[in-house]
Each structure stands twice: as structure tokens, then as C-alpha cells.
């Protein structure tokens, strides 16, 4: 085992994580959540066109590989005259992906709030949108924290696919050093460990977040 190489390569790999993987995941997740909420609301909307459109988007996102989505945006769109640089391409693909999966999570969470909560909102004179915003969504948010956290953790790992469209991130750094040094096993294990450490940290944050939100939920 080449410990010196392991140590020397840790710098670039961690830099790839900090400048590539982590911001890519955070930005895509934040945008994806906004998208997810919008798609979820469209999906439960009584306006047929909206809910049909939402169902279509969800179906496409969930029914096609993320790698293919990424390639369509980065390598496919230029043939239509639309060239998007690697980073934005990755952000677009990942946010749409989070939007699709997150929409189903948020929709399920909204539906899990008992009908009595809608009715209680109505009987204190609230409109449908006010009830949604002040009564239903806060309760749905609590329910969706665990599955959304899982989505985020998956996203962190999926960002490694961005290396295939030339985004400089954790895995691409590892690949470069591996190709140069021919120490494939060492570098890929090292990359795996760094991903693992990031995900361990995220799981810990998730646990604490759930505990904090738990105080506000009905214990029936």
C-alpha cells in the first residue's frame, strides 16, 4: 500500500468534495426542493391539466436513468443549438431529478395529514390555500424529513456521475490521480471512504433534525 500516495491524493480529493460534490449537491437539492413542492402541488391540484403535467414529469424523471438525463442535457442539447457548460448542466439534471422524486415524497406527506386538519382549517374560516400553507404543509414537512434526507444522501452519491460530463468533483479528482499513478484500487477506495464520511455526517444531522421536529407532532 502506497501510504504516501494516499496522503498526497487526499488533498485534491477533499478539495473536489468541498468545491464540487458538496456545493453541487446543496444547490441542486435546494432548487430541486422548490421544484418538488411545485410539482407536488400541481399533482394534487384539482386543475386536470396541471396534475396531468405533473404526473408526466414525475413519470419521466423516475422512469429514466439519471445518467441518461445528464447526457441528454450536456451532450444532447448542443445538437439543438443549446450548449450548457458542465456545472449548470449537472445542476439542472440533479434538480430535476430531486424535483421528481421529492414531489412524490411531498405529495404522500400532504396526503398523510388527516382530512380533519383540512376541515379544522376550513372551520376557522381559512381558505384552501391558507389551510395548505399554515396547517397542512408544516405537518407534511415533518413527515417528509426522513425520506427527503434519504433523497439528499442519494444525491450526494449520485453527483459522482457529474464526473462523466467533466465536472470537477470528488470522484473525478480520484480518477485523474488513479489514471496517472495506476493505483486504481487505492484511489477508488479512498474516494469511497470520503463519500462514506460525508454521508455519515449527513445521517447524524438527519437524526438530530428529526428529533427536533418531533416535538411538534401529534403523538396519538
Amino acid at each position: 500500500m502506497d501510504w504516501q500516495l494516499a496522503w498526497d491524493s487526499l488533498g485534491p480529493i477533499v478539495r473536489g468534495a468541498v468545491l464540487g460534490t458538496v456545493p453541487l449537491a446543496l444547490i441542486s437539492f435546494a432548487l430541486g426542493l422548490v421544484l418538488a413542492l411545485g410539482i407536488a402541488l400541481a399533482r394534487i391540484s384539482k386543475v386536470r391539466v396541471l396534475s396531468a403535467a405533473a404526473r408526466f414529469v414525475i413519470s419521466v424523471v423516475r422512469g429514466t436513468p439519471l445518467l441518461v438525463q445528464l447526457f441528454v442535457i450536456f451532450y444532447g442539447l448542443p445538437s439543438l443549438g443549446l450548449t450548457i457548460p458542465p456545472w449548470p448542466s449537472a445542476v439542472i439534471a440533479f434538480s430535476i431529478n430531486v424535483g421528481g422524486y421529492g414531489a412524490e415524497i411531498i405529495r404522500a406527506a400532504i396526503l398523510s395529514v388527516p382530512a380533519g386538519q383540512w376541515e379544522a382549517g376550513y372551520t376557522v374560516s381559512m381558505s384552501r390555500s391558507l389551510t395548505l400553507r399554515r396547517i397542512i404543509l408544516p405537518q407534511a414537512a415533518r413527515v417528509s424529513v426522513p425520506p427527503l434526507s434519504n433523497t439528499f444522501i442519494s444525491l450526494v452519491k449520485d453527483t459522482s456521475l457529474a464526473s462523466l460530463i467533466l465536472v470537477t468533483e470528488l470522484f473525478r479528482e480520484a480518477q485523474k490521480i488513479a489514471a496517472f499513478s495506476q493505483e486504481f484500487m487505492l484511489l477508488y477506495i479512498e474516494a469511497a471512504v470520503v463519500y462514506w464520511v460525508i454521508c455519515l455526517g449527513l445521517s447524524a444531522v438527519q437524526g438530530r433534525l428529526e428529533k427536533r421536529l418531533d416535538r411538534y407532532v401529534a403523538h396519538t
Partner: protein
Amino acid sequence: MSLTPDRPSVPGSTGGTGVPLLRATGLRKAFGELEVLKGVDLQVRRGKVLVLIGPSGSGKTTVLRSLNALTPPDSGVIELDGDRVDFGADVAPRARAAERARLRDASGMVFQHYNLFPHKTVLENVIEGPVVVQRRPRDAAIADAEALLARVGLESKRDVYPFQLSGGQQQRVGIVRALALKPKLLLFDEPTSALDPEIVGDVLSIMSELAHEDWTMVVVTHELSFAREVADEVAFLDGGVVVERGAPADLFTAPREPRTREFLNRLLRPLD
């Protein structure tokens, strides 16, 4: 703040001749094939208490939820304090929504399972409607809420969450939440059915206080002693119609209809 509704008392409201505050005529409702209401007529005069009784599945809840349009009837007319909504009329969806909102705004509802907002404290539950919808000043709403909570013995619970309360306490908050909106009409759907027997009395006594303070109430309940003591009128619902109605003294002691008699017998002697 007293629990008394915030409006001048109407002359004649204690007599038998006042104009009804609420009049429902010909309420019909079907769920798919199942005809639940087949033409229900009801009236309640201002400051009076109407108790609805009837077997399980007879449509009591459906009637109550028609009155605030939570479950809009398929047809029938509801007149509430001069506001007339004809559910059979062909009305644009937007106008219908506005009509339903008006009925909802005019009444407060207390649910069997309380339906408090679990993510809000007791105080927040109570002031939600007054502050967010009615746009009353927050301080005034809080002062009113505190006074109401004190009236039902829950002043010390203002900052706790619903899950920290017993069922009886939650239901008292449910009542206060309805009162805080100062509705014209209070609707109760089996408010004590989910409670342990020993706390049923607490909630019923708050309700009879409200009755004595001139609130207009429609109450669905199986508590016949409450009906006997508090109701001005009792209506027996069965098979989607009001089979019989009258003053509790008459209806309970000398029911005219065989179906009423049978129902009361079963309720009073459940072990036979």
C-alpha cells in the same frame, strides 16, 4: 371576556316566536348510490339549542356538515341570519365557493376528535382564525383567547402543545377555538364521544353554560340527559329524514312515532 356572544340580544329570542337564525329546507345528499339525506328540514331560533339524535349512519354528521357547507348538500336551502344559499341552484363554481365560505365563516365547529392543530400551541390554535383570517389585532385576540381559556380552566396550558393535553382538555380547547371566532352558530358533532366517561361531564357542563349564555347551537350527541336538560328542541333523524321533533320533555316522555320510541328504548336500555 364573557362567553356571551358578541351581539345585542334579540327581543323575543327567549320567547317562542323569534325569527329562526338558521333554517334548512329540503337538504338532500347522496354519496354515490347511497342517499343519506332525503329532504331534511330544520330550524333553530336565535339563542336556542337544537339537539340531533338518531341511530348510527342516519346522517347526523352529514346534516351538521351541510350547515357549514363542509359537506355541501346536493340540493336544499340554508338560510343563516338572512344569508340564503340555495344548493340546488345552478351557480358558477366561484360563486358557490363564496357562498360556502360565507356559511363557514358564520359558524364554528367542534369535532368529535377535536382536530386541534398539532404543530401549534394551545394559544396559537385559538388565535389562528381571529388573527390570520379575521385580521384582528394580535394583542386583542390573545387577551380574548386567554380569557376564554381561563373560563374553561385551561389558562395554565396556553403554551403547551395539544399532545400534552388529555382528551377532555383538548376538547375544551376545541370549544374555545370555535368560540374565539365569535360565530353566529356553534356546531357540535358528538363532542364527548371520544372522551373517558369521567370527563364527559366537564365538557357537557361547559356546553350547557354556553347554551345559557345565548349561543345558538346545533348539537349531535348520544347524551340524552344533556339533551333533556339543555335542548330547546330535539330532532330525531332516521332514514335520511327528520322523523320527529319537539321539546325534549315531549319527545322523550311521549314520542309520537314508533321509530322514535324504538330508538329511545334501545338507547335507554342498551342491555335488553
